[in-house]
């Protein structure tokens, strides 16, 4: 019997935790709700002015993003919180699985569950656009990829919050990070002109510490078929990986010190 390497252990963990996540009823409920919501775009299309199937595209991309967020919060955060409180980690850590393995495995499994959700939603959006006589594939792929990058960063934060707070607080903090991530850019611009120094300082700190999730938002370009450079995708990927890695390293430190 020989111990496995780190990659294999993480992979094994990721596979089993992924199965754990997507078999959860919450995943199925969320998927169902998201499908119904996107299908409603068929009605909204009739009431909206713009290019053909604009509502399907707008609604589809928004639901894709929010649905991924919900998978992350309600499944991912929930699962890891449960592991910590139910002591199911004893079963794992008594085996040749380090805390770092577990953290990475959790992260990858959450991303895999998010990816599964994105695939389901993308298929639905593609089908709906196809039914309305427009083959819209490139945009969906781009949107899915950028959403994955966004969730990569957010899931790293979510894991960090789970380690330092209760499950409900961790969910709330993750949601708050999402909100701040999408508003901090605009807030920084607005506050530049302000004379309110404490607020200015707070916004500056938040801008420095929290990720700018709006950076991954290219919905207008995707909906209108405007070109997005390959450089941007590379930049976004590097940004997401770097941020996630940083947060995961901090989380590993926290988990290493945590009493189970």
């Amino acid at each position, binding site marked *: 019997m020989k*111990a496995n390497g780190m990659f294999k252990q993480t992979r094994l963990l990721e596979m089993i935790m992924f*199965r754990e996540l997507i078999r*959860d009823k919450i995943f199925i409920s969320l998927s169902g709700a998201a499908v119904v919501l996107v299908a409603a775009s068929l009605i909204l299309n009739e009431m909206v002015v713009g290019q053909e199937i604009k509502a399907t595209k707008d609604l589809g991309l928004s639901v894709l993003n929010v649905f991924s967020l919900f998978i992350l919060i309600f499944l991912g955060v929930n699962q890891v919180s449960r592991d910590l409180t139910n002591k199911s980690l004893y*079963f794992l*850590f008594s085996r*040749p699985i380090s805390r770092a393995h577990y953290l990475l495995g959790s992260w990858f499994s959450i991303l895999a569950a998010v990816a599964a959700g994105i695939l389901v939603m993308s298929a639905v959006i593609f089908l709906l656009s196809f039914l309305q006589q427009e083959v819209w594939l490139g945009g969906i792929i781009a949107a899915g990829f950028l959403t994955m990058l966004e969730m990569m960063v957010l899931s790293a934060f979510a894991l960090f919050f789970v380690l330092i707070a209760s499950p409900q607080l961790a969910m709330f903090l993750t949601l708050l990070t999402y909100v701040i991530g999408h508003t901090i850019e605009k807030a920084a611009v607005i506050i530049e002109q302000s004379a309110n120094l404490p607020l200015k300082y707070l916004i500056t700190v938040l801008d420095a510490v929290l990720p700018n999730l709006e950076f991954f938002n290219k919905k207008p370009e995707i909906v209108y078929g405007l070109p997005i450079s390959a450089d941007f995708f590379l930049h976004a990927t590097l940004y997401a990986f770097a941020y996630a890695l940083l947060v995961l390293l901090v989380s590993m430190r926290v988990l290493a010190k945590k009493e189970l």
Partner: protein
Amino acid sequence: MENVIEVNGLCKVYKKNFRKIHALKGIGFTVRKNMILGILGPNGAGKTTLLKLLTGIMAPERGMGTLALLGTEDIATVKHRIGFLPENPEFFRNISAYELLVFAQRVSGIQHDREKIYRVLRQVRLFDERRERVRNFSKGMRQRIGIAQAIIHEPELLILDEPMSGLDPPGRRMVTDIIEDYAKLGRTILFSTHDLDDIEALCTDVMVLKEGEILLEKSLAQLRLGSRFLIQAENREGKFSQVAKDTEELWRMLENIRNKGMRIIKVQSGIADHLELFYGQETDDES
């Protein structure tokens, strides 16, 4: 005979609500190969802490003693040779019993062996429920799957925390059989329990922990040499315990008690009485 476990001056301190709790206060012991060590102790004695340290779930703090397993202080490198059953085990809920054992096998560095998994499932009487998700398992079934995942990779050292917990008599019999089978294979077993009968029936050695300290660490053979009789009696004033060192003294004491008009509650022989003295009154309350 080589030592499987060597512990010297091991301490563990928890910080809770700004207070320090000394869970282990510099304990030291050794476990030889093929030993079946029973760990006794009341709640809060430090049994679970000790088992968590032994299995690598927790790491000992620097300067707080040494802990060596299977010849190394780096427990992470030998975890695949240890099997652990936690108390009231919890697992991934949406995974089937079969999938759980596949994971347990593979993560311990073993190739997926379906026949072996089936064999173990039959051994723990969960073969028919192999496709069932763990969330649908009863407490006893979870205990059994816990045992299964602990032994699936045929570890050299088996550590069981309250293995009989939640099991019906056939289940308890099953665990006993497993422990005995493992002992025959030359493996080393540690298990914690509250049940003195289990200690007497299964163990080669016993360790009594109380408030983070080892009160007793002896082989059962040694305990049996000095075995006495424990007599418990009561009268209007209360309960009394007396120990007779041999049968002659036992009969004398019994007659004395009868003459005094006291009522005999219990006469216990073997090592149990010896252990109870260390266990204290808590043993009675718990049973």
